[in-house]
């Protein structure tokens, strides 16, 4: 009687991957040994079991995201100098406020024909922020190269050691708690450098209310442009970022490392414009809500966990805001 076969050897045997001699021995052993026949029969089912795993096709949003990333990459390649040249200017001028989505290079040329209509942020239409600190949040819309750019400005009650490379402009400093502003995050869209200032709205986003909560932050598109109602002038010294640099050296904002958040925003944006970055909570856990504007599509809302970085999305959920919302 030949020796029993082990599963791996039987698996090799099944795919014709043993010597003729061994195959002969195995065949004769299988003829005599019910245990090994059972093992062999079980093994025969493994490929079918593996093949039975069905997964849905690639999500449309992912296709769009990767297409955006590739288009962005193509734009970078087409104008490598511009992106590089824009780099030193990427820090917004102090007087420009902590601009979100501020193009730092001139001559906006859109390779993709986008119908840019970023949400306009109404002063009175910020349910979430209003809950926390409506007065602290002034909102403006920049028009750059025919592109409307949403801009959040504001002050916060933050204590910060981070360099104020984006001083809030003209934000009233009265009674602020809640909304904080982080250091500008840089990203590129169509080969241009932009920066977006993350906020902390202190919102606890929830699955059922996500769209409403985000719409509250970004505002209905049809609403009036939020004016710079805030007085212009030197920013109050208290108005600074709420990012902190612990003694360890890694700059954090909320529960996020700024470096990771920066990489994360670039990753999620994938060449599209970033409308909002809110470092808040999702179902009670630390999360960031990133709203991007992709070409002629509804605003996309990505909720990511603190693991989000340049190399990993850590997506908690994703949705689109209905057009017009």
């Amino acid at each position, binding site marked *: 009687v030949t020796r029993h076969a082990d599963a*791996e050897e039987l698996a090799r045997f099944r795919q014709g991957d043993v010597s003729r001699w061994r195959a002969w021995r195995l065949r004769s052993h299988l003829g005599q040994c019910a245990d090994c026949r059972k093992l062999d029969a079980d093994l025969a*089912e493994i490929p079918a079991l593996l093949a039975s795993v069905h997964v849905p096709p690639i999500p449309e949003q*992912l296709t769009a995201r990767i297409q955006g990333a590739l288009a962005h990459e*193509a734009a970078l390649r*087409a104008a490598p100098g511009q992106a590089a040249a824009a780099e030193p200017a990427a820090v917004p001028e102090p007087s420009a406020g902590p601009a979100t989505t501020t193009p730092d290079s001139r001559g906006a040329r859109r390779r993709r024909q986008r119908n840019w209509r970023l949400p306009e942020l109404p002063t009175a239409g910020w349910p979430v922020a209003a809950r926390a600190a409506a007065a602290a949040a002034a909102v403006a819309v920049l028009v750059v190269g025919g592109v409307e750019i949403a801009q959040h400005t504001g002050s916060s009650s933050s204590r910060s050691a981070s360099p104020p490379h984006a001083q809030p402009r003209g934000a009233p400093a009265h009674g602020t708690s809640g909304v904080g502003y982080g250091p500008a995050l840089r990203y590129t869209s169509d080969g241009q450098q932009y920066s977006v200032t993350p906020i902390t709205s202190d919102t606890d986003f929830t699955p059922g209310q996500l769209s409403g909560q985000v719409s509250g932050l970004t505002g209905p598109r049809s609403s009036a442009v939020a004016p710079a109602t805030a007085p212009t002038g030197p920013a109050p010294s208290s108005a600074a970022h709420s990012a902190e640099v612990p003694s360890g050296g890694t700059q954090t904002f909320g529960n996020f490392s700024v470096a990771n958040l920066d990489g994360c925003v670039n*990753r999620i944006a994938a060449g599209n414009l970033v409308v909002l970055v809110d470092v808040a909570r999702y179902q009670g856990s630390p999360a960031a809500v990133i709203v991007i504007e992709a070409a002629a599509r509804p605003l996309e809302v990505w909720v990511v966990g603190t*693991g989000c970085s340049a190399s990993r999305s850590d997506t908690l959920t994703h949705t689109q805001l209905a057009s017009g919302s």
Partner: protein
Amino acid sequence: LGRAGSALPGPRTAADTQPSDAELLRRHVAGDPEAFGQLFLRHRDRLWAVAVRTLSDPEEAADALQDAMLSAFRRADSFRGDSAVTTWLHRIVVNACLDRMRRRAARPAADGADERTLDYLAAGHAAPDPSSDSDLSLDVMAALRLLPPDQQAALVLVDMLGYPVADAAGILGVSEGTVKSRCARGRARLLPRLGHLRHGTSQPKPGQARRAGNRSVTGDVLPAREGGEEPR
């Protein structure tokens, strides 16, 4: 041999009216901003199929696929035409997945990966009883995830997606013998972990892939074993 023609399935659209993969890649290298995007669109379904099965987590798979496509975009000029473009693209995707698996091995399981995967799998089942199908799929994926990454990758390509061993070898950059060996080891290791599932599913459901069927996830019938490139 896998050079002009493709070792792996070609475009879904009529090949004669569309530029070949090699032509698209050549245009991309020459500066055409659209060409690589077309290549991605053409093959996205099967690249996704590989990534999501290899990583068993749709979020990680999405990230890996994005990384892989950007990587392929950037190093397209290093493509020498020794293999089919599809083989090359698959290889980059598989390597991106393997990188992530190895990194994942060094840290605790990603939070919520199973829930995400289950939700995702459930979305793919239109069967009357989607939960049992997706549970089964989840169990299979969970068992697969316990194998060494190399064995996982081989089984994903050969058993799950029905690629010929030669194609899998080209994608993985190893010999056919190595692919077979990894598959055999992987199947043997899966046996005890899938024991509770085997008997309910021995017969493939209609339309489901049998490994011998050479069927891709998109439903295309893959060409029966072609030359493919020589394994390295």
